[in-house]
């Protein structure tokens, strides 16, 4: 409705929509109308300056007028149409990608055959297909960052009784992140005088590159992984660890004491929380007997008693404990509240990325969201069954990538929810929580999982 109010075109002032009463509106008539509902006040007509056509007084629609009878507002009805179209387009795009991906192997062999027929060397079609795969994998972290930033702003706004971005793109500001991205691209690229120039410049790349590389072995559903690595799990954790070097480079290279403190805190925190995060996954490895992410997802197919899915989270005690430890440590690894001490705006003025401007800053931002997406993909694959259906009669109702996407989105919502719910940890409590609670319990968990494996086998 704020778009409606801010329409500044004087040459085509929209006619005042007929503010119908609740009884007259067809949609509202279907609902049980509140007794003795007062008719909404007619909207004031906009006033324009006659000389130059400037808008002097807006036709202002107050939220109370809007929500008294939303269905009578054309804007409100249009918004629902737009939302449905948007969701349909997004689902269609996901369908296209998900369904194309499963033809990876036939397409590769077809390309190889055709290439051999035209006398091309064997690596040429392979190279082309590798490039296509790179694009397909890259769009996951990049697009998800775009969507999740917007989603986070909307969720945080609604949790605080605000509206969030409403203007760019027409429908609930869905293009806001794109506009912000363009703005960040146009910003000046500042290098501080005290900076260690090359370290400062390279740091964002060192943070982002492993974040993107880590998506290679992630299995987005049945037969949907770019690199079917046998050591996929170790690879993902290894790549996620390299980003710490970039954060420390940023902390050092900025030549700023707040950045240095942020870099130090980040190193301490990430190195500490990496341990329970990996130990929480070891029961999963023991149950699945594989390090391959696709195999781990596939090992959770089937149902206990024909109803309850065989997801690792449903293994009594062990599953829930390791899921919780993994979730907490993942939030810590992505530097998000309540573990955002490395960037703590209120004490360290954004910590290690204080001195970064424009695109370099947005690369840090991108890495954070890429790691959040990665953590949710991993949690979905390790504990929530990857691409398997939650109930036995739903098996085959949706393709596996759709189930996977749904689980990832649900987990991302949890991440956003945490951020706008919890206060920040204190440094010493952060370390106590990790070393005295998470780590011992993850060890106990491994022992318990060993007992399970012994009993079951």
């Amino acid at each position: 409705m704020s778009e409606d109010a801010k329409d500044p075109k004087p040459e085509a002032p929209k006619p005042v929509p007929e503010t119908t009463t609740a009884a007259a509106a067809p949609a509202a008539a279907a609902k049980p109308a509140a007794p003795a509902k007062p008719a909404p006040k007619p909207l004031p007509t906009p006033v324009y300056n006659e000389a130059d056509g400037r808008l002097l007084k807006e036709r202002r629609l107050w939220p109370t007028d809007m929500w008294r009878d939303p269905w009578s507002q054309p804007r409100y009805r249009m918004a629902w149409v737009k939302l449905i179209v948007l969701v349909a387009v997004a689902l269609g795009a996901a369908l296209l990608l998900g369904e194309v991906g499963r033809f990876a192997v036939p397409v590769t062999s077809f390309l190889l055959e055709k290439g051999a027929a035209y006398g091309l060397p064997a690596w040429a079609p392979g190279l082309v297909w590798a490039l296509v795969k790179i694009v397909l994998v890259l769009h996951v972290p990049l697009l998800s960052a775009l969507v999740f930033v917007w989603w986070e702003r909307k969720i945080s706004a609604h949790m605080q009784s605000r509206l969030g971005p409403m203007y760019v793109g027409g429908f609930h500001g869905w293009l806001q992140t794109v506009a912000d991205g363009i703005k960040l691209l146009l910003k000046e690229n500042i290098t501080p005088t005290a900076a260690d120039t090359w370290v400062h410049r390279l740091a964002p790349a060192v943070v982002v590159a492993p974040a993107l590389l880590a998506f290679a072995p992630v299995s987005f559903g049945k037969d949907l992984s770019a690199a079917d690595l046998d050591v996929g799990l170790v690879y993902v954790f290894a790549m996620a660890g390299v980003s710490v070097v970039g954060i420390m480079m940023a902390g050092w290279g900025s030549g700023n004491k707040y950045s240095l403190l942020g870099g130090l805190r980040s190193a301490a925190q990430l190195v500490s929380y990496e341990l329970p995060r990996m130990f929480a996954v070891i029961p999963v490895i023991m149950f699945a007997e594989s390090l391959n992410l696709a195999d781990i997802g596939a090992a959770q197919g089937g149902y206990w008693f024909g109803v309850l899915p065989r997801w690792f989270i449903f293994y009594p005690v062990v599953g829930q404990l390791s899921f919780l430890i993994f979730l907490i440590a993942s939030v810590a690894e992505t530097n998000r509240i309540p573990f955002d001490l490395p960037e703590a705006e209120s004490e360290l003025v954004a910590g290690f990325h204080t001195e970064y401007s424009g695109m370099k800053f947005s690369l840090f931002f991108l890495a954070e969201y890429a790691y959040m997406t990665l953590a949710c993909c991993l949690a979905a694959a390790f504990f929530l069954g990857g691409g398997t259906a939650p109930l036995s009669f739903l098996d085959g109702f949706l393709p596996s990538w759709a189930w996977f996407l749904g689980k990832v989105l649900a987990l991302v919502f949890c991440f956003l929810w945490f951020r706008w719910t919890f206060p920040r940890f204190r440094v010493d409590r952060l370390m106590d929580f990790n070393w005295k609670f998470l780590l011992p319990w993850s060890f106990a968990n491994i022992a318990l999982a060993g007992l399970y494996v012994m009993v079951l086998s």
Partner: protein
Amino acid sequence: MDCIAFYALAAVTLVSAAAVVRLRNVLHSALFLGLSLSGVAGLFASLGADFLFAAQILIYVSGIAVLVLFVVLLAGRHSELHLRQTNKQWLPALAIAGTALWALSRVARPFSGLLAPADGQPTTRVIGGLLMGDYAVPFELISLILIAALIGAIVFTGVEAE
């Protein structure tokens, strides 16, 4: 193709290793140490040792290099940013390094024909079997030593905190 990858990675490893000992800024040295270690990881990958590649990155780059950086950031002094990296003892050092290199090449030469092909089989299962089977005793000994080192570190740092 494999040869290009191997030699490029070897060049990265050697050049950054040289930079570690040549650069005057301690932090730059630490960063190049990380690059050198990831070069070694790349060499493992190009020789088809997938588990070693991942473990090298996991332990050396995101563990040891980060700890070295941490120490440099936490305990570094300003004077360490302009250290001279050579002193008058360079001749004996060169002799020791040369001897070590010669000895290593003598050890490595008998195995130089045994390089694994790049498209090797997954190695994790085999490594796990060996660690828990033939090499169980050395493996447990190493873990014992590591635990002793861990407890020793705690004892040494814990006394001051009292």
